[in-house]
Each structure stands twice: as C-alpha cells, then as structure tokens.
C-alpha cells in the first residue's frame, strides 16, 4: 500500500470515529441532566470539532484550516470559563434570593 493511500484510509477512519464521538457527546448534551454536564459536553464538542478540522486539513492538504482550529480552541476555553462563572453566580444569587 502506498503512503498516500494509507493516509487517505487513516483520515477517513478518523473522520468516522470523530463523527461517532460527536454523536455521543451530543447525546450527553441532550440528556443532561444538569447544566454542568451540558457545559462539559460542549467543551468536549469543541475538542472533537478541532479534531475534525485537523483530519480535514490532512485530507484536503489545506493547512490554512489549522488557524481555525487554534481560534476554535480559544473560543471553547473562553466559553467554558464564562459558563463556569455563570453557574457559580447563578447559585450564589439563588441562595441570596
């Protein structure tokens, strides 16, 4: 098997596995049961999307996608921090009310 064909099959297999991971974390977002579980699954979803972008960059050879992956990692981190603060503030406000 030539190296190019090998890369083709490997990137296809990893895209399938990442799609499965996407579906599983989507199921956790839907069934919850708490807000923190959903935030955690969203955080994992960002990592899965980064993996998707990496695999597609390998398949197409367009490595410009890598910049988008780094921006997505930053966005996911900021979203998780903001949602964690929201969970904390919501709990404190609930105690005071």
């Amino acid at each position, binding site marked *: 098997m030539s190296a190019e064909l090998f890369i083709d099959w490997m990137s296809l297999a990893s895209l399938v596995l990442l799609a499965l991971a996407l579906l599983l974390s989507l199921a956790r977002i839907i069934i919850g049961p708490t807000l923190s579980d959903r935030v955690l699954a969203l955080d994992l979803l960002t990592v899965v999307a*980064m993996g998707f972008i990496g695999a597609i*960059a390998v398949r197409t050879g367009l490595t410009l996608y890598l910049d988008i992956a780094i921006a997505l990692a*930053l966005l996911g981190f900021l979203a998780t921090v903001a949602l964690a603060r929201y969970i904390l503030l919501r709990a404190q406000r609930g105690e005071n009310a």
Partner: protein
Amino acid sequence: MLHSLALYVGGIVLLAGSLFVLMAAIGVLRLPDLYTRMHAASKAGAVGGGLLLLAVAVLGQDAAIAVRAVIGIVFLLLTTPLSAHLLARASYLAGYKPGSETVADDIAINAEQNSANK
C-alpha cells in the same frame, strides 16, 4: 524513504488521536456522575486533540505548519485542565454533589476542619 515513513507515522498518530477522543466521548456518556465524566473529558479529550494536531504537524511536511500545530497543542494542554478545574469548582460550590460511589471529598473535609478551628 524518510518521507513515506513520516506519512505512515502521521497516519497512525491521527488514528490514535481520534480513538482517544472517541474514548473521551464514551466516558462522558457512560460514567455515573459529573466529576467522573469531567475526568474522562479533560484527560482523554486533551490527549486526543493534542495527538490529532501532532498528526497534522507530522503530515504537513512544513516548519510553519508544524510550529502552528505545536502552538495549538501547548494551548490545549494549558487550557483544558484550567477549564475543567474551574467548572468542577463552580459546580461543587453550586451544590452538585459527587455520586454515591465517591469516597473522597477533600473540600468537605477542609470546610469541616476550618469550622472546627474557629
């Protein structure tokens, strides 16, 4: 020869990374409570994402791409533990208790000792 060896290694790293991410997703779906799920997502997720970016660095065959991928890996390894810790602490203080199988609860022990010392 060395060129095609790098391609084979990169393909295997790509597959290993996506397997790690899949394991993280299975853990998030199957584990019993929030804190054990967090353990799956933050460890296996970070390693899986890092391996996928490493595969892009190996397969890119270009120094500029490799540097960008390594920046992405470093960023992922710095921020994933941080966000997991923030989320775990916020959830604990907001009153989400660990599941009944959990035996160690250091925040509760510390809080008891602090109130006893006062």
